[in-house]
């Protein structure tokens, strides 16, 4: 009897202990980023482009912080994520609506299967694909190529979240809208999509936060650039890509912490907003 109770207690302690241990990496990572990165964050960090390696070396020799910032990464990430989202959001919403409206046809089952498949494709392969589809035909690395890779990554995420959210809507909602004589189009656009706004918006935010930190699909599509670049047909940088370049340059390696801290904060804000929205707009 008492042995059973002791075993039970031990099990509970083990569960709590190991659960607690998983918190450590998060705390350790955030702590390291803040500790090593905060002094690099200033106004220039957001408004100046990445320094060249010589300037960085000279500054560090004389004991100063590395001059310059990640403006080229910030603008590049912005351009590519926005372009990817502009493609993925309408396509994803519509495909998700299609799947939730006609779930049982062979076509839908095929689409659903392939959505799962796409969701599991490693992001580096999306880089290869965007290279083959965009970089090679255009003859140049570009923001377009990067955003195509990110688009393919976002698409299945939005399709799934849309489908799941739409399936949670009460079925009489659609009927009651149709009973008022409205067209199929306005039932979807004016009733069903707005009613599931919370879930859809959360899904979109999470998809954006997933692709924002991606490096692998951009390495041989967007490539990187040392200037702020608004030309979507030219090579463009992104924050994660810059981190990779800093990491590989002994003189610039001091920049990695502040850059990582910044992208982490962005992703954190997106994640927290997403869960807030999800809670606030829960379908009742």
């Amino acid at each position: 009897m008492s042995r059973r109770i002791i075993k039970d207690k031990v099990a509970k302690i083990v569960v709590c202990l190991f659960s607690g241990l998983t918190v450590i990496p998060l705390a350790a990572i955030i702590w390291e980023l803040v500790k090593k990165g905060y002094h690099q964050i200033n106004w220039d960090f957001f408004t100046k482009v990445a320094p060249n390696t010589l300037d960085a070396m000279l500054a560090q020799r004389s004991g100063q912080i590395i001059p310059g910032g990640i403006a080229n990464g910030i603008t590049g990430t912005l351009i590519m994520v926005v372009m990817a989202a502009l493609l993925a959001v309408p396509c994803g919403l519509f495909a998700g609506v299609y799947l939730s409206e006609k779930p049982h046809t062979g076509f839908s089952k095929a689409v659903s299967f392939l959505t799962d498949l796409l969701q599991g494709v490693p992001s580096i392969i999306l880089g290869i694909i965007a290279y083959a589809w965009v970089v090679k035909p255009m003859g140049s690395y570009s923001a377009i190529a990067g955003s195509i890779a990110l688009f393919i990554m976002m698409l299945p995420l939005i399709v799934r979240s849309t489908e799941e959210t739409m399936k949670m809507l009460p079925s009489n909602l659609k009927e009651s809208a149709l009973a008022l004589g409205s067209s199929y189009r306005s039932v979807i656009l004016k009733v069903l999509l707005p009613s599931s706004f919370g879930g859809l918006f959360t899904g979109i935010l999470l998809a954006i936060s997933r692709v924002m930190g991606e490096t692998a699909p951009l390495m041989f599509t967007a490539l990187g650039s040392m200037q702020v670049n608004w030309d979507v047909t030219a090579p463009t940088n992104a924050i994660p890509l810059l981190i990779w370049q800093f990491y590989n340059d002994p003189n610039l390696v001091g920049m990695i912490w502040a850059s990582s801290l910044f992208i982490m904060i962005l992703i954190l804000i997106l994640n927290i907003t997403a869960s807030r929205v999800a809670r606030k707009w829960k379908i009742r």
Partner: protein
Amino acid sequence: MKSASIVKDKIFRQLLFVAAALIILISAGMIYSLTTGSFGAFSKFGFFKFTFTSAWNPTAGSENYGALSFIIGTLLTSFVALLLCIPFSLPVALFTGEYFKGTKIASFLGTVTDLLAGIPSIVYGLWGFYTLRPIVQSLGLGENGFGILTAGFVLAIMIIPYAASLSGEFFKLVPDDLKEGAYSMGATRLEVVRHISLPMAGTGIFASYVLALGRALGETMAVTMLIGNTNGIPFGLTSTGNTMASIIANQFGEADGLKLSSLIALGLLLFLLTAIINLIGRLIMKRVAVKV
């Protein structure tokens, strides 16, 4: 006006259809591009020879490429990650889905694991490089702390949140009346977990780990930064190596000709590997979902 709205409805339905068809188009295009891209390598070496030999020699004139060392590197790191992930993700799943189900502390832990899942791969790589690697090095495991073990450890941390949140859902699905039945006969919590919850949720939890494995197989940046990037067959846990993803990340940018084709072929193999693992995971999961 009404007939105009019927026409608009038709167009709208077609738009929905086109969006869904786009998924098929992209998937088909992907398989097509990977296959045609790897044609050069497969026609030179043959599919089986390419897949099951380990040469990686880019010297012009005696170029010879094989995928085996990278396939082994991929499988080794991923399975190390999976093994290391289980003792942490299972307790987290039990914590959120069973022991403290629905409490504030459970939702806090849920948020923490969500945030862990949101950390970019490259940041995990930096942390692994600057914090973990020196520790591994001081323990004398691996060259300068690089290798399968270091990469596998960071990979484990990366897949814990995914495995934990998926398997936690299956614990939550275990019906309360079953558990109450066991409690009413005097069972302790541990006994309920062992004899009711685990058997009930077991298949789903297994599927969660299969999907977590699928994630680990394709992870790129963190592994690239920690595995040591050598091209031979890894000989043990402390050995350096390369995974399929990491060799592509390292060499695709400067590659052309036969080497490029070989890298795309590696991409195709990685695609197939992850697709198969993911499909197995999803298939099991669908079975479970139908039953519950």
